[in-house]
């Protein structure tokens, strides 16, 4: 689509002018529907002090369809698989056009704060998480340090 709906322009403007704490989102120059996103690991979580890179893409049907979001940074999380795909209801069937990029990213941040191993995407991680939560958190911290430390 050559033209960009007003809403996307508006959202982009707001993301830049009024950013959410701990979250950045920058549209690509050649494709305004494609965003580079960083999310800081929430405090008191296994991902604290980590800065996670994500990519976000707004499909043609946005906002009727949910945006596509994916972790680029390796992360040890029961709801995020090795490819960075995220299991989050608002990105799937619970999407509503009233939601926005900002709200989606906040939801992801919240997901980092509270992993949900009962609705897993990465089964091995989820198993690990259920069996040995401490070990899993330690591993997550280690990965965060390893892959997501601030540069």
């Amino acid at each position, binding site marked *: 689509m050559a*033209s960009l709906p007003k809403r996307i322009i508006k959202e982009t403007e707001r993301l830049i002018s009024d950013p959410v704490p701990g979250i950045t989102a920058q549209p690509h120059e050649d494709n305004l529907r494609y965003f580079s996103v960083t999310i800081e690991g929430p405090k008191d979580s296994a991902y604290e002090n980590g800065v996670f890179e994500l990519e976000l893409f707004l499909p043609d049907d946005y906002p009727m369809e949910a945006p596509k979001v994916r972790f680029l940074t390796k992360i040890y999380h029961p709801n995020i698989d090795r490819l960075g795909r995220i299991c989050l209801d608002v990105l799937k069937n619970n999407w509503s056009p*009233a939601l926005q990029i900002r709200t989606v990213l906040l939801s992801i941040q919240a997901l980092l704060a509270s992993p949900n191993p009962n609705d897993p995407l990465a089964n091995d991680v989820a198993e690990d998480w259920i069996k040995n939560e401490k070990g899993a958190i330690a591993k997550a911290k280690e990965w965060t340090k390893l892959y997501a430390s601030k540069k």
Partner: protein
Amino acid sequence: MTESSQPEISQDQIKGLLQKTSELPLEGEKKLIVKQLKESTQMSADELPVNSSTEIIQDLSQHSNEEFNNEPVDRKIEDPIQEQLQSSQEESKNTTQDHSQRFLTGEPIDRNTILTKLKGLHNDCSFLFAANKLGLKLSEDEAKEENIDEYLNAKRNDFFKTIKSVIPSIDNKALEYLYVKHGNKEDSIEQAILDFSNTSSDSIAQGKDDSFPLVETSSMKAHLITDNGFKSTLLVDTNKKNFPIDTSSPKHSNPATRSSSFQSPSQLSFNKPPLRPNSQNNLPLSNSPASSQRKRTKEYLNRDYKRLKPDLQWKRFIGALQVNALATRPTSKPVEYGSQLSLVKSIPSKNKRIFDSSGKRKNAMSSFIRIMDTKANRELGRVPEDIARIVFPLLGDSIVDFEATMVFCNNRRISIGDTFVFQLDCFLTSKSFEDDEESTLSQGMKGLGEKNSTFNKGMTETDSELHSRTQRMALLNLFDIISLQPILDESKALQENATQKMPDFIDLEDENYNKIDITDDSTSIPSTQHQEDAMDLNQIQSFYKAAQSLESIQNLPETTPSKDIFSLDLRRYQKQGLSWMLRREREFSKVQTNNDKTDPVSEGSITNPLWKQFKWPKDMSWATQKLSEISTDLDDIFFYANLHTGKFSLDKPVIKSMVRGGILSDEMGLGKTISTLALILSVPEDTSIVDKKLFETSNDLVIDLSKPEDAKRPYASKTTLIVVPMSLLNQWSEEFVKANASSEVTHELYYGGNVSSLKKLLINNNKPPSVIITTYGVVQSEWTKIFKETSPHYQVEVSTGLYSLDFFRIVIDEGHTIRNRTTATSKAIMGLSSKRKWILTGTPIINRLDDLYSLVKFLNLEPWSQVNYWKTFISNPFENKQFKQALDVVNSILDPVLLRRTKQMKDIDGKHLVELPPKEVIVEKLEFTNKQNKVYKQFLDKAELSVKSGLARGDLLKQYSTILVHILRLRQICCDESLLGTQDENDEDLKNSNKLVNNKSEIESILKKTEDKQPNNSFTESELQLVTQSLTERFLKNNSYKNMECPICTTDPIDFTDSLFTECGHAFCKSCLEDYLKFQSEKGRDHNCPTCRKEIDSDRLITLQCNSEITEKPNFIHYDNNHKPAKLNALLKHLHVLKDCSPGEQVVVFSQFSSYLDILENEIGNSFKDEDVEIFKFDGRLSLKDRHIVLQNFGKKNLNKMKVLLLSLKAGGVGLNLTVASHAYMMDPWWSPSLEDQAIDRIHRIGQTTNVKVVRFIIKDSIEEKILRIQERKRRIGEAMDADEDERRKRRIEEIQMLFE
């Protein structure tokens, strides 16, 4: 045939030979013949009255006693006189056309011709002794007359003999002439001899034609019998052999009836090799007199034996046929394979003529062609009619020679009715090439023109004309049947031909062309003058297709005019065009050639289009194949034949084209004006005139285009006259100023009397303007003044105007203006005089081929500018449906003088000549809204019912308008159901059906029905009240309804008139929520409130309604989801998106319903704020002045305001230039795709700089999809331009069936 090469044989030699032959006794043979005759008379009593036949017998025996004392050895003695009479008869039949033509045209036959004829006599004499063949014509009827004429004949014969002894070299025709003139006088012989020596051969030659009326032939024949009859009966064949005549077979029953039974097709074949026992040339003399065979000589009195003319130098194989023949005589043993056969022609008797008086064929020609077994000298059978039609007219003439060889008779004896196969080898003889081409070309054509005019006087064809026509047809058919095709794409080496013969020509009516029945055109030539001769689309297309021989155009060199003289940049093809134009003007020095290829066109000679080139086929004749005889091979690879006149030539016939100028026929918009100006500025004046002036002559002798009186006009050698339509006068002037780079070169408008004396301006002036621009009107009025009013003294009068001068060059713009040569304008233009002439027109043919004639005439393209030529070779064939032929000729004429490029053409790099930005046409398929769907179904049912019943009863046509109304309604519903009951101004078939269309009550009843059926899931009264109450609390009380944000599009605030509320109390834009609901339905997802995820229902939505007073708060009401029609919605959506993306866009919206444009105007206006969008409407209701204003305002760019032009397809389809817009929406499909294409071309044309995007809205599963299919079909089969009313209706019915299938 060695003797034939001896030019002279003296009388003494003849005498000597006669004496030699006298040694042969032949009394017995004589008796036999008498006996034969007796028998034949008994058997054919009905044909020949007994008494007359006995008289014949008596005569014959008498003569035999008198004259047959000296029976020749080989029974082939010939009387030279007889031979000559024979040939004169033949000639008068066969070739009178030529003679009579010459005679009619008053053209003298020169002395050479006569000399040739006299020489021919010698040859004929020698021929006799060379034991060649001789024919004799005699009909049964004529036999009856012989008694009566006996005395006269005897007298004549004496006369002839005496004269001959005095003047041995006398032509027999001359003899006859002299006899007619002097025969009845006392001292006839002396006078005749005197006459002969005194009169010029010319007069004799002419007199001969004159005084040989065909009526006389019968008496002549009779006379022949009485005098020389016996010898004649024993005439012998043709193929170098003498043999006794076979007469064993029984008399024929009616041959015509039999011939019909064996019309088997003949085939080409060259197989079956076995040896032939006797070679052609060394067949032993037939020593089987077998007197028993010689019965019924009578039959052969009617025979005309095939013969080769003695002056034949060579013959060359052109093809062979295998012919299935029907046996008419039984044989006692099988005819040997390879036996030589011969074809013998009998002359039809008076009551059995082939053609009746009106030239229609009455009898089958196969009745008159017999196959003879040369060796056994007996008849074998007959050829099928199709072969006979070819052979009969050609046999006996020396154009084509035939040789027949038995190939297959099943190796058993032949019974009557058996079929056998023989090979027929066809040869062209040297004789056919003998004519002097230069003269025959012009004479022949003049003759044809002349003939045509006699036709117009209502005269019927003479026998000779009939004969020559038959011969031409036979020749055509022969060439066809032996698959001798003209070479179209002769090797690339001969480039000039490749460009002339159009290999990719569309084969229009080839069948017709090749298989014309002889009867077909016999009477139609004169009568078709007033027939509808309009061309259909395909023909015009094929003409254009051929007119653009791509390769040669691509290979034209480019000439860039110097910047000093021409200030504009030419495009590549324009440069090529300039080169072409310069070449046409023979300004070769100015052409910048990239490679030094000589262009055939530049040499000024083109192949005469009436002549076709043929390649000599490989000699596959029996003689060559089986007997390894070496045929007379000539070095020529090709020969040329004019099948229209039956002329042949070994040299390429050319027409010298001396015309300087041509037709520049590039498609509209390719810059004909610019090209022409480049030419004018490149060659502004006649440079050759400088030298000429020394000789004080204004008449350029080299290019003598002008008529004699023009020579008196002073030559404005430095001035080009441009004649243009009034409306283009200023444009040309402006273009000239733009293009002209030199201050030396000036131009002048010649209009409205602004120039007092052109002569003074152009001649008595050192620096005359190079260009005079005037209008057709001026030219015409001057012409009228000069030639109509003061015609007797016009030479005095013409001292000032356009007609007082001979211009250097004339250019007529929009040259098709003169296409009707009877108009005053056309005549006026023809009267102008110049050395070079150019025609600019994008459409050289408007609708008939004759449109071209005026152009050709203006250019003085000889010989085609003579109306007779044109009529004979183009108009008449075209009217006779010989389209290919006519168009072929036209193309060959125009190919060198016409240049046409189209926008679609690609240059040598494969680029289009004109690059337009890409155009994208999207078909956007929409779905009906629920309501539309319901209404549509109702009307569809009704329509289908009506069509089906119409089809079942077969009176669909009667219900034509009813059905059209049905269709109209369906189409209207697709747009907007509120259109129902309005007119469709575009459909001419519906113009008279207002009542049907406006039948409101019917429509309303149906609409009502659909409304009743509408399901309702809506609020109950109490529910609604509850909801509105809570909403009022939330939004109205605190005025928050004024600052709502739509969560979907983030519009803030929502215009409350455009807001929509859910049951759960959340506000959205109308379109956003509707889109969302639609989207969710499409994906099969639940309808949840985007904000709170509560379930919502599209039937349970609330909206705000403004009250009449603005101050008062709005109130909540139930939102009636009576959706806007699908197309309107889609359009609005597109416009909104467009407005968001680029606010200053100009948009064109097409529809064919004016009332729909009104609706759209309203809706778009409501949907946008006034300051965002400006709407223009352009339809048939707009006055001319307003149209201009509308277009002007629409054209002004405003970066902050979208401009929408609502355009009626009909009113705005043509002519407008809307390149300011790059987006178009077609609301409804029209039947004709071309009309839609044209509409799109308003936007997508030269001048358009950005990509064009066109969206066509089509409702899925509706009549519109079917209309699309019909459009496809039309694109495929092409729309005939002049399809008549019935045709159009018929097509329409087919379309209707497609719609409802």
